[in-house]
């Protein structure tokens, strides 16, 4: 990479072309602007401009009761909203010191792993699109829709799910929901293998993406990479294993690793993670414990409507929750979950008030994306597009 840079180094600045890639370029999936300094088709230098869809979530969160922050987290990484929702619920539960029943943990794991599959499917299918293979994309989107059908059964929403509550889930899995999950587990692997057959060992595809946008493990760590991007570079850091939350320690799964940190490795790590996620969902569904689907936190978990209308106590709690008058302990807490593309952390400072005093989202995209100029320097323009889609940068999470 460095050699090619030197070969193409020109002496004067006017010998370069400046190219504005974005903010609304159809090849970059989302609002990204990169100002590229081009030498022919080779990228000599790049500057990223971000913030086009900044919505000041951290400021808004300082003015909202805890349960109203869940919809904000939906809009971070909107390809895997349920993981963000669960991460936020668990942060508040950690602050409150709530112990959730095993059933809640397992149900959450099922939903989070479904979300991970949906997230990775979109990313990998889009890598296919960017190399000119549209077939896999249309094929896999059908299965993303099936995952959204399951969300719909669980919570009624599809994309920005606002799934679950502080303390548990809003309702138990319905028989129809269980049926849909089983159907998905049964049918999906066959189609996924076909998708994998299209791309994984496809000579043309491999030649196209191997050695595109590589990053070494050392640089990746220094840049704060997490998730599949870091694991593709060969570092086995996964929050699910390192700091298990929501009973992840009960499940048997492996962490796929790459070696080169290039686009192909990122693609393959995601492919194998999808298979591991399927394994986790199967185990969780087989061993789904009996019991309640919510913890005993009447200050935060809404009582059933039937009781609100007929029971004085439930009515009081309903009002307290809706008006955000529940008391919370003073303290600060950091909790992180393995999001679709890395460690999604929530740092919350609570002063005992109705809203967090300070809430900071550690967004994996935001931190990883600053390595992008370094990764594309010296490569072709078309490779830069591929590098971005393989890093799975989601604009909503990038800009918060």
């Amino acid at each position, binding site marked *: 990479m460095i050699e090619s840079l030197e070969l193409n180094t020109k002496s004067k600045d006017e010998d370069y072309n400046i190219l504005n890639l974005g903010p609304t370029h159809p090849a970059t999936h989302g609002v990204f602007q990169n100002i590229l300094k081009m030498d022919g088709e080779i990228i000599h230098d790049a500057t990223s401009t971000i913030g086009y869809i*900044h919505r000041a979530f951290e400021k808004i969160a300082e003015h909202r009761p805890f349960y109203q922050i869940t919809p904000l987290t939906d809009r971070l990484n909107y390809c895997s909203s349920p993981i963000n929702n669960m991460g936020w619920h668990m942060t508040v539960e950690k602050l409150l010191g709530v112990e959730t029943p095993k059933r809640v943990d397992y149900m959450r794991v099922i939903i989070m792993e479904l979300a991970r599959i949906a997230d990775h499917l979109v990313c990998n299918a889009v890598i296919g699109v960017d190399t000119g293979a549209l077939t896999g994309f249309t094929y896999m989107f059908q299965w993303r829709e099936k995952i959204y059908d399951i969300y719909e059964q669980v919570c009624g929403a599809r994309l920005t799910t606002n799934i679950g509550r502080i303390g548990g889930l809003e309702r138990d899995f319905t028989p129809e929901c269980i049926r849909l999950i089983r159907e998905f587990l049964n049918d999906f692997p066959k189609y996924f293998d076909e998708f994998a057959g299209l791309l994984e060992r496809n000579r043309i595809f491999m030649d196209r993406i191997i050695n595109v946008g590589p990053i070494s493990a050392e640089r990746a760590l220094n840049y704060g990479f997490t998730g599949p991007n870091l694991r593709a570079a060969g570092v086995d850091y996964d929050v699910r294993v390192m700091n298990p939350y929501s009973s992840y320690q009960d499940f048997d799964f492996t962490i796929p690793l790459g070696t080169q940190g290039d686009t192909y490795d990122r693609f393959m790590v995601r492919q194998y993670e999808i298979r591991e996620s399927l394994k986790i969902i199967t185990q969780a569904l087989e061993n789904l414990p009996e019991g309640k689907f919510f913890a005993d936190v009447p200050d935060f978990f809404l009582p059933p409507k039937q009781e609100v209308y007929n029971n004085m106590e439930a009515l009081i709690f309903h009002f307290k929750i809706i008006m955000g008058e529940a008391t919370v302990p003073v303290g600060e807490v950091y909790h992180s979950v393995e999001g679709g593309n890395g460690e999604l952390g929530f*740092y919350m400072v609570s002063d005992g008030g109705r809203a967090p005093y300070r809430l*900071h989202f*550690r967004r994996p995209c935001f931190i990883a994306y600053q390595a992008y100029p370094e990764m594309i320097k010296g490569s072709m323009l078309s490779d830069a597009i591929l590098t971005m889609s393989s890093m799975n940068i989601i604009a909503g999470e990038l800009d918060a």
Partner: protein
Amino acid sequence: MVNIDNEYILTEITNQFGDKVYRSYEPYGLLTIEFDKNNIKDLLSFLYNHQELQMQFLTDVCGTHYPDVKGKEIGVIYHIHSLINNVRLRVKCYMPIENPSIDSATFLFSSANWQERETFDFYGVNFVGHPNLKRILNADEMDYFPMRKEYPLEDGTRTDKDDSYFGR
């Protein structure tokens, strides 16, 4: 092999820096220290190069604002993680709001670059030694730091909304 726990980390840091550690506590099991802002560079490189600790992963940098604590209004909070030992550390540095400035961590962590720009953007912290300290999420021509507590969420001159019932 020594047992790396919060107690060990704290001892190592106090042995090295002594009274530069103003305060230490463990909210929810995560060792938190308040540290002298003038020596943050030394602390970060000490933790990075320490034989046993190897705290080489900067998880997060963010700011806070406490308008009532005079002389220590603005805070910068680092979350550092040792991936080898799987221990985390939270370091807090406070500084006066008149001239909030602290040394940049970019000399050690490339990931600090944008996170410090974000903190500058929201809280106006001047990171000395940062290669490109300018706004990142907000518009360049903005002339205030919006996450500071004195700025309301919405335009304060609006009269059509009464949020007092909701405690805002």
